[in-house]
């Protein structure tokens, strides 16, 4: 196990930032922590990286007791990119290279990986937000770590930068690296993660493989002359889980995949002729909002 977290808790005064959360991250997975702003994602990662003091619980990296040496095997971004403004990109990475006992030769390599090589002699304070974020990613990659912890890695990046990061994560993942990503962007999590944990107000609501958590029930939009009558009929069907009423149609959530033809047939038997019948694509956002409601 790369990481196991047991009953972790953190309070800021009366505010519970992290409430008794437990989860495990296996080697080679891309583990997403998904949640709205203020749900405790960064606090959780801060505790795991030893910059935030926990009030309870425990965690272990690499199945070993908590010890600072573990962070040499982890490349991390936490919140904003933090660098010395009076140092250039190269010198900033030299500081980390010394901390992690990595050869300075790696610096050019990671800078070119994030397209910052030409700016390696520019002072950090002259960087744009996107460049700062890319330097933070280069910093995390510096030691070619087994584990990457990325807190909102696409923050401040333009669309092209976001795609580059996504490709980078997929590439690292295919090399067997374990990646832990915190994000409030469901799209980001869905596209790169194998596992997801959903947090809200410090609580861990659900966690597991993305394919199990972020799956919406199949749904169908349906309309007819008489919506009341239509609803009466549909209510009685076993495959219907839930019916939502809209202005001039119903949206039904299904327990299982049902062919439109099958529904059509049932309705015809009751002399109802649908004026609109449409299968709705799964909407992850809605599923997510459903979970955090």
């Amino acid at each position, binding site marked *: 196990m790369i990481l196991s977290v047991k009953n972790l808790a953190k309070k800021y005064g009366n505010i519970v930032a992290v409430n008794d959360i437990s989860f495990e991250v296996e080697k080679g997975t891309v583990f997403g922590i998904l949640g709205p702003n203020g749900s405790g994602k960064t606090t959780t990662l*801060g505790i795991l*990286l*030893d*910059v*935030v*003091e926990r009030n309870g619980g425990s965690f272990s990296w690499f199945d070993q007791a908590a010890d*600072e*040496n573990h*962070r*040499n095997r982890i490349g*991390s971004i*936490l*919140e*904003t990119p*933090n*660098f*010395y*403004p*009076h*140092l*250039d990109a190269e*010198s900033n990475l*030299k*500081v*980390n290279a*010394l*901390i*992690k*006992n990595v050869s300075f030769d790696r610096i050019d390599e990671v800078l070119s990986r994030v397209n910052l090589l030409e700016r390696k002699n520019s002072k950090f304070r002259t960087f744009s937000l996107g460049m700062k974020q890319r330097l933070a990613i280069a*910093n995390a990659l510096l030691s070619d770590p087994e584990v990457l912890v990325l807190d909102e890695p696409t923050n401040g990046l333009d669309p092209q930068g976001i795609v580059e990061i996504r490709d980078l994560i997929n590439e690292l993942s295919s090399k067997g690296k374990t990646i832990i990503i915190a994000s409030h962007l469901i799209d980001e999590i869905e596209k790169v993660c194998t596992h997801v944990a959903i947090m809200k107000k410090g609580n861990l609501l659900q966690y597991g493989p993305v394919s199990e958590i972020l799956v919406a029930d199949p749904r169908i939009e349906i309309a007819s002359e008489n919506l009341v009558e239509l609803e009466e009929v549909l209510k009685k069907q076993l495959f219907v889980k839930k019916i939502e009423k809209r202005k001039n149609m119903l949206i039904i959530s299904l327990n299982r995949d049902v062919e439109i033809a099958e529904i059509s047939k049932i309705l015809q038997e009751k002399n109802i002729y649908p004026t609109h019948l449409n299968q709705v694509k799964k909407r992850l956002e809605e599923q997510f909002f459903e979970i955090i409601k």
Partner: protein
Amino acid sequence: MIKLLKIEWYKLRPYTIFWVFTGLYSILLFGAYYVVKKATSSEEFSLGFPMKWQGLTYIAGWLNPFLVLLTILYTTNEYTFNTIRQNVIDGLSRTEVFISKVMVHLLFSLYSTILVVLLGTLFSALFSKSFNAENYFNDFYFVGIHFLKCFTFFSIAYMLSLLFKKGIISIIALVILYIGDSLVSWIITNPIFDMLPFASMSNLINNPLFEQIAKQLTPETPPPLWVFILVVIAYMILFNAASWFLLNKRDLKG
């Protein structure tokens, strides 16, 4: 240890304020010795040349705030830019973070001490008629005391920097502490108040001129020097322990 020093060096080397402050400190110390040398021609004068080490280190003590200011800015910047947090995220332990700054303070103290010795030797060799080994080493122990005084001053500033995390607030706190401490120890003559941090530090190296006058004015003898040395060492340990505690027990955030 070497690794930690290397890291600090990489941070300090391109830091303009570092060069400005240490440069200014060195020039001002030279200037101060030169002015005092010009002002005092008589050799009987204990502040005159051969300036005894007590006089040289006493003058140097007045310039310590320059280096202390620098270390406050240096430490609090780590909070302002959240780099202290990043250093730990990247792999340093909090104790290593603590030790690296302590080493910087030791080096600054050493620099100040070496500068005092070099300039003192230079001025004595050039301007003193009685420059010999006996005179030279007569009260050389003040050089060691100067080192202790410097490092303790840095230690107090370090604790305040870690406590307040903001440069300007730490500096104000230091000034308030200094003035408050000095006022109390001046106004209340009870010797207990001579043991306050800044009072005891300033009692380590008295103004050689006033010391002569004070001896004639007040019949009571002040506590011996070794008492102040022990008290200051105790403060030095106390403030560093507090710094370690602050670094280890709080969230690392600016």
